[in-house]
């Protein structure tokens, strides 16, 4: 008995109080090591070298350049512009996503009629392939498109997608629309975990519906909100398809270029993976900082 207990303690000091956790997480850890660690380590290594992808057996020189790629990336106006663009994107997209997704999820959770129809409606944009959805948005927001026809003389000039001030906000709205189904689902699943007693207590206290929403629902959904904020930030930082397809390669004039689009251009199209990797590493640092910040702001108990 004593022996067992002391073995347990030793195990606990080595692996923590609940060592079974190590077993549960092992498959994931192996997976990360097998398909993620090597490419990622490779990418970081690349960012410090004048690298390019060569055929097996080819003799090539890939000198160490220190922070050269980082300097090149940070002094490139196009790269700076792209980071700025993604900042604009996040400022619009993340709050919009949180407010709309939470509001719609709460409303949907209480809706009794036409439940299936309503849920499917909000989910459809998320499941549809980007190529097609982008096609429809082009139709809506192009110069002679439906939206401009409805706006008549109020239509912006130049039109949405070729207007330097409007292209990125429009993409932010587009992504919010496209991804909303995903986030509504997250909130809906989160809402199932809000104890009904809390509402009943609030109702007894005579709280108005709005007060109940603010004092019961919003705090109870905080973990879900954190999840939504972090995931929306990550999705936004990895923005690629929309500037690639919707504004024809980050147009107009680079006003909707994103860091990942530049990585694609520099690294894959132009064969400068060193610089692309440097942009990628900078982006990763930025997103981690933002995620940490949202965690600090939202996970206070």
């Amino acid at each position, binding site marked *: 008995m004593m022996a067992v207990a002391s073995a347990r303690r030793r195990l606990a000091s080595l692996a923590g109080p609940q060592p079974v956790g190590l077993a549960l997480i092992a498959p994931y850890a192996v997976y990360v090591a097998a398909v993620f660690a090597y490419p990622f380590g490779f990418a970081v290594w*690349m960012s410090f070298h004048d690298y390019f992808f*060569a055929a097996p057996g080819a003799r090539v020189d890939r000198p160490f350049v220190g922070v050269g790629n980082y300097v090149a990336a940070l002094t490139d106006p196009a790269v700076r512009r792209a980071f700025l663009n993604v900042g604009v994107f996040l400022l619009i997209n993340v709050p919009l996503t949180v407010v709309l997704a939470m509001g719609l999820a709460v409303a949907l959770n209480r809706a009794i009629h036409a439940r299936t129809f309503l849920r499917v409606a909000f989910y459809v944009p998320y499941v549809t392939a980007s190529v097609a959805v982008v096609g429809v948005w082009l139709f809506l927001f192009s*110069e002679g498109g439906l939206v401009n026809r409805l706006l008549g003389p109020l239509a912006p000039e130049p039109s949405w997608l070729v207007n330097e001030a409007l292209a990125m906000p429009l993409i932010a709205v587009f992504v919010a629309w496209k991804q909303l189904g995903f986030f509504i689902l997250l909130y809906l699943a989160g809402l199932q975990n809000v104890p009904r007693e809390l509402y009943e207590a609030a109702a007894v206290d005579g709280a108005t519906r709005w007060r109940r929403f603010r004092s019961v629902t919003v705090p109870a959904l905080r973990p879900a909100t954190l999840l939504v904020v972090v995931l929306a930030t990550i999705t936004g930082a990895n923005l690629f398809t929309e500037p690639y397809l919707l504004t*024809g390669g980050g147009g107009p004039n680079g006003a909707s270029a994103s860091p990942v689009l530049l990585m694609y251009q520099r690294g894959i199209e132009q064969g400068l993976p060193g610089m692309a990797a440097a942009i990628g590493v900078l982006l990763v640092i930025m997103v981690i900082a933002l995620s940490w910040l949202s965690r600090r702001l939202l996970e206070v108990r």
Partner: protein
Amino acid sequence: MKKYAALLLLIAGTTAACGVDGGAQDTAPSARGPIKIWLSNNKEEVAWGTAMAEAWNKAHADQKITVEEIPAGKTSEEVISAAITAGNAPCLVFNTAPAAVPQFQKQGGLVPLSDFADGASYIEARTGQAATQYKSPDGKYYQLPWKSNPVMIFYNKEVFKKAGIDSENPPLSTYEEFLATSRKLVSSGAAEAAIYPAPSGEFFQSWFDFYPLFAAETDGKQLVEGGKAQFDSPEGHRVAAFWKTLYDEKLAPKEKYNGDAFADGKAAMSIVGPWAVAVYGEKIDWGVAPLPTSTGKPAASVKTFSDAKNVAMYSACRNRATAWDVLKFATSKEQDGALLEATGQMPLRQNLPATYGDYFAKNPDYVTFADQAARTVEVPNVPNSITIWQTFRDAYSSAVIFGTTPPAEAFKAARDKIDALARQA
């Protein structure tokens, strides 16, 4: 064995990334055996390629060709580049973009065709003088010039008639005439746009707006020559000013069209290669005109961009002797004829109209293009080719399409950058 390799990779982690992996096969040049080739997934080309492979396989049971498809679009260079790095590229790709050749070459992904005893002589005998444009800076051929799509102005005759413009000999040869015609087309309401080149920012879009007109205006200068950018010149500025007028006066839209503007009747004109004959042939009553120049050069001397696709041999290929034989077989007079018949694209072969007289007699639509195919300009074969094109495109977008930077300033800045890029070997 594979398991251990995987484990090793895991343990080695990032350090594995630094080493140069061995495993090149230097016995390959004389080896024969089965080979794999990639074709673009364009329907007609696949039909041609499959038939070509069948004909070869019938006669060479021990050296069979396996055919696979890659998309014709933007992704094909990425796929090839990734395959080079992974060492599983096929022997031949019948869809190698000349602009990507410098990069593939730098990657060590290409077999110099000049290393075959009859390599250079075969290429030069087939293509003639034009072949030298495809030589790499080290003097070797890493690509076989295969087929071109010399671009010209296609116009919609019905739209021209509606606008009250002569639809048989439309005034399009000088910039003045071209602009006047464009204004008439749009102001009459016959078409929303006079011409609609893609105004988007991808590096290759300049091949279908600025570059053909630049080739015509300069009598065949490349974007970069002798390690120096050529576009910051009076000719280059004239071409830029021409396009800028079209964009400023809303004769050409600044917004990307989702679909084919010419096919949908949105645009009265389009810059296209001979493939367009088959595509628009039935749907639109079309005419073809040479590219405009500022002074209106005679049609017979106007040059254009070739939009060529070539064949290259990849270093992962083991049976290179077979691959070289297949390459010669696939670009023989007979197979070139079959390609022309199947796709309407122009084999990069000298004396085209004379060699396939029967075909052109039967298909007069293609004669103009065949004639133009003799006067084409290629993208420059220089290091950092794609970065150069992207740099140029970015400058062009901001100066010409969106008008946010004065063209003189934008071109000057792009020239400095491109000169530096072209110097790096």
